[in-house]
């Protein structure tokens, strides 16, 4: 299986963006690009072709689920796996995000020291789904 290397992080909160960048780049040795909103994520994903998109659920403008739907409509981004990130933690919501095509859900707050390994775990299991 191809290793997880390039991650596009879509998140409107700059502090969380910065922590996730350290968590993935420095701790996890990945390459990270960040976007502030769903619209710019659609463009960046098509151009940069990340291995994975880490997508915040609730953002001003287009929210996470809508962004995912649009990613699936674009030829260039149709196949890119998406993991949702959210502070919403009802178990049925997790199921919901999976059912609409999310690979899995990472719950906020996350631990910066283990975020990368958490993503890798999900990544490695993705073909079993």
């Amino acid at each position, binding site marked *: 299986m191809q290793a997880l290397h390039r991650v596009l992080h879509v998140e409107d909160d700059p502090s*969380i963006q910065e922590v996730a960048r350290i968590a993935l780049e420095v701790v996890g040795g990945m390459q990270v690009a960040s976007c502030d909103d769903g619209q710019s994520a659609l463009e960046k994903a098509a151009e940069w072709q990340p291995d994975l998109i880490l997508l915040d659920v609730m953002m001003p403008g287009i929210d996470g689920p809508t962004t995912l739907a649009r990613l699936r409509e674009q030829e260039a981004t149709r196949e890119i796996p998406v993991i949702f990130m959210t502070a919403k933690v009802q178990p049925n919501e997790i199921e919901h995000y999976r059912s609409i095509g999310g690979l899995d859900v990472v719950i906020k707050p996350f631990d910066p020291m283990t975020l990368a390994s958490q993503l890798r775990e999900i990544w490695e299991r993705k073909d079993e789904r």
Partner: protein
Amino acid sequence: MSDEDVRTRLAALRVQYAERLGNDLQTLIAQARELAARQRSVEPAALETLRQGLHRIAGSAGTFGYPALGQEAREMELWVQTVLETAVAPTAPMLSALGDRLCDSYRRLDTQAPTLAEPNAGYPPGGEERPIRVGVMGADACGALEQALSGFGYACRRSATPDEWREWQPDVAVIDTASLSAASWQACTAVVPGARRILLSADGSFDARLQAVRDGADGFFTHPVDVPALERRLRHLVSQPQQDPYRVLIVDDDTELAEHFRLTLKAAAGIESRVIEHPSDVLRGLREFVPDLVLIDINMPGCSGPELARLIRFDDDWLRIPLIYLSAESDAQRQAQALAQAGDDFLVKPISDVALTAAVTARAQRSRQLSQALARDGLTGLIKHPAIKELIEIEQSRTQRSGAEACVVMIDIDCFKSINDTYGHGTGDYVIRLLANLLRQRLRRVDHIGRYGGEEFVAVLPACSLDNAREAIERIRESFAQLECVAGEAVFHVTFSAGVASTLDWTDAGALLEAADRAMYEAKQGGRNQVRVARDATPQT
């Protein structure tokens, strides 16, 4: 880049975040207050803005070391969301209550040091954790209670009006219901909804106790109040929220289902789980993860659930941990057979998320309580001798790996025998608890404090330099010497001597403790009531 560098960068971000958090909370308070003050109805767009602000905090505060605040923001967000979804216009008092709650969060921000998994800094200069605040309300007799609790090191204040309570913001409210009308004290507790409540009553009947439960009491005492017992309850109440999340080991070859359980427990109750697919990995899982509870699938290839449970029970270390079977087996007789072999209970699959969470939480809580009761000293609630020795070893090996410095402190109350002889053993116990409380309040959350022997204490201070440790203990020594101890009519002062040693100077846990002990002995020789550092003692060769 090393772990240490990462932590340094994260720490810098945390400082930035703390500043922003204060500003964000102020903005939200202003928004809520503004909405509450409006005469006309509140438009959904304004509520949506409020909700987004709360959502941001809910999602980020925990990552930056403010998990409690994140949780509060999440609760408030859900409230606003419910209001939005039901399309019922929120009333001014509702919005004003939201503003008050935000205000409470903002005030606590100043006193809440971020809780970090690994501390980087030592003690900030002059830095001490905020003492636990107690509000006392009731007849004049409560003055004695206030004094006694102050003597135990709590910040205590008699407060009688809602304004006084709002200003004092106590962690615990002690209310003498015998001398007050329900309306008068409830008006006061209403302004501090987060405070735990201990109710005092002249009536110890079942009905009075039931009423206390219905009044939201967390503790109930009858006159004349057993002050040490009340103090124990108080300490118990305020130490609860600091608990680490419960930990559950799930042994199940159906990894997808196990993963679902893991996520459910995490999401619904913040429980940390680790999934083990192969039964043969269970002992390693137990050792590494040290769970509060184990969930075991009953049918696994190569090894059945009951076999695995018996295997776990071979080891005395895991006797205290509940082993719960997860099974599609609903036949009561076969369940009984499995339980007869080993294991503590059955959960039948399919199980709803709610039922799973409730069952696991209740048992994990009980298991944690038992473990703590076993590892803690009954008089002081501090860690017992064997457990603190183990912690010294853990800390020692951790510092060897990371190169960080940790310190061990040995503390001994001066002339304790003469206190016992003069005032009796009850007073001796009181002095021991007094010092235990002071240590608990003045040391950081990450520090470990143990009762080593009769009047001897050991503290383990991770990520702390020798100088910082000495200064911190020096300040505690000064405070302790100033505390007034009361025994009947007599008022007296007690002191302690202490020795501090660093993991940088002694690389063996036993030698480290001996060095601290030697330094403490030197302090005694030097005239008592002082702190000595182990590098003053003869260093090891």
